[in-house]
């Protein structure tokens, strides 16, 4: 009995799961870079935008696998230029992060936090609209290309007008409701924030992401975060649903549970 068929099968299998790495910068019919694809960051910005060493988990019994990993930070210049009273508010939020971080309640991440949460997001592009679907809390954003309208009301994901500046897609985000945080360390901006995002191709499989945050009620000057986005190249990758509501119910409503009853026994393994 020859072993050839096994080898052939193995080769076929390998071919079927070949990563979908692009070799040329994709462009849309109108000549602009095609930002379509599934992207994700590969850093610790979701823990803390500023440079940070490793730290204890928010609950000690969570142990090392939920400890805070170290990271060089993504703030250009290193430190967020808080006004003194705003820095105190950031520190207060850090102390209360277990109870107050909206991520723990399955609330939409807002902008720019949704970009660097540790979950994939998908950009879909045509000449009039660019839409982004974020896995966390199934958040969705529509960016009006060359849009001029102002936000009619505040929202979690804000109001986004985009324009092309050469090969860079620039998005002005206003109308944020100020209820989101910027990371798990209590960094924040208020509802007065104006965010300018810049998406620039670094190559076929990488984007440079920049967000400049202007909010004179919280910061002494505008400041910028910068980080690469990595294309997910797994074959036929889909952004699976992360409907996080069930996992936040006990946290939000547990105190209203009928005395003597227990939450659902453990997490379902589905």
């Amino acid at each position, binding site marked *: 009995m020859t072993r050839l068929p096994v080898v052939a099968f193995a080769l076929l299998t390998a071919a079927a799961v070949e990563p979908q790495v692009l070799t040329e910068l994709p462009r849309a019919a109108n000549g602009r870079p095609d930002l379509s694809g599934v992207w994700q960051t590969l850093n610790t910005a979701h823990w803390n935008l500023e440079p940070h060493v490793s730290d204890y988990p928010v609950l000690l019994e969570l142990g090392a696998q939920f400890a805070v990993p170290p990271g060089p930070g993504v703030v250009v210049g290193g430190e967020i230029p808080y006004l003194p009273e705003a820095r105190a508010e950031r520190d207060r939020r850090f102390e209360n992060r277990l109870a107050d971080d909206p991520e723990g309640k399955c*609330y939409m991440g807002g902008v720019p936090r949704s970009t660097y949460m540790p979950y994939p997001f998908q950009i879909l592009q*045509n000449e009039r609209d660019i839409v982004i679907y974020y896995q966390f809390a199934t958040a969705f954003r529509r960016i009006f290309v060359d849009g001029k309208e102002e936000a009619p009301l505040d929202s979690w994901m804000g109001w986004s007008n985009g324009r092309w500046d050469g090969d860079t897609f620039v998005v002005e985000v206003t109308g944020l409701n100020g209820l989101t945080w910027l990371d798990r360390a209590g960094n924040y901006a208020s509802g007065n924030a104006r965010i300018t995002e810049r998406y620039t191709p670094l190559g076929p499989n990488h984007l440079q992401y920049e967000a400049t945050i202007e909010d004179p009620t919280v910061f002494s000057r505008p400041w910028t975060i910068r980080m690469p986005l990595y294309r997910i190249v797994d074959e036929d990758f889909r952004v*699976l649903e992360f*409907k996080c509501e*069930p996992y936040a119910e006990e946290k*939000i*409503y547990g105190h209203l549970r*009928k005395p003597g*009853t227990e939450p659902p026994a453990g997490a379902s393994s589905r």
Partner: protein
Amino acid sequence: MRKPTTLAAAALAAAVISLCAEAQKHPRTAWGDPDLTGAYSEFTTAPLERDPSYGEREFLREDEYEEFAKRRLEQRFDADDTEPGTQEDVHYSMGQFALSENEGVHSLNLRTSIVTQPKNGRIPPLTAAAVARRDARAAARRGKEFDGPEMRSLTERCIIWSSTQPPILPRGYNSNLQIFQSPGYVIIQGEMGDPRIIPTDGRTLPDKLLPQWNGTSVGRWEGETFVIETAGFHPESAWRNASENMRVTERIRRLDEDTLEYEFMVSDPDTWAEPWGGVYPLTRLDGLLYEYACTEGNYGMANILSGARAAEKEAAEEP
């Protein structure tokens, strides 16, 4: 064709529509697919199931339509008419906030029901297995409905509205959806639903699917029609008591500048002895859909549970 005032105009429009279809004058995207993009109202005058008095009659006569539609359009929650102590009595008035589904724009629809198959326009009865599943679920909740958040409905928990998952059906309010397209994808988002990112790049449904609340969808173009196949539903979603093995086929095509046709078929031998389905128009909205943040503003859940705790306390204190 929106809110037709005369049937003559409607009939004329219908004739024009069919001519246009023949001439293939529907808009195309920059990359050549039929263009379905826009925001649409799902409201229609046809009820989901047909009144049995119509038998197998699919369409109203034109002289019957006005009265039929008028009855439908007058159905509305009205806070003035509610009975004290009922849920309707404490719910805000849908009419007051222009939320009632029948205040949305709609197209002429002479159908007597959304359901068209089986021919009686009625959803087939549940199989014995489906009845058993439904009863077991109800029994597991009985007497515990207010114990904790996990005992409440998926809608109250902001997990999913059964009518925004495929197949999409009109619902009591916010009965709208928007469609985006990009090369290789169609995106459908119900106002209160999750975005469905539907690939049209030729991929097929895998044999093994992870359960998803909205299922997993693949799409393809058949001429002017966008066809979506969906399977792999979450077992707890139990759409109309269906099992996780339900499969849904949706077909969307443009009828005219303001109207799409939405057709669906569901198949689940564990739940219904035969597949069933229907069709209704989607009518273009002039406005935009805005963000629907459900769990972020879910005061209802806290109020329901704290109300139940207060009621228990009150009952315990009674002599």
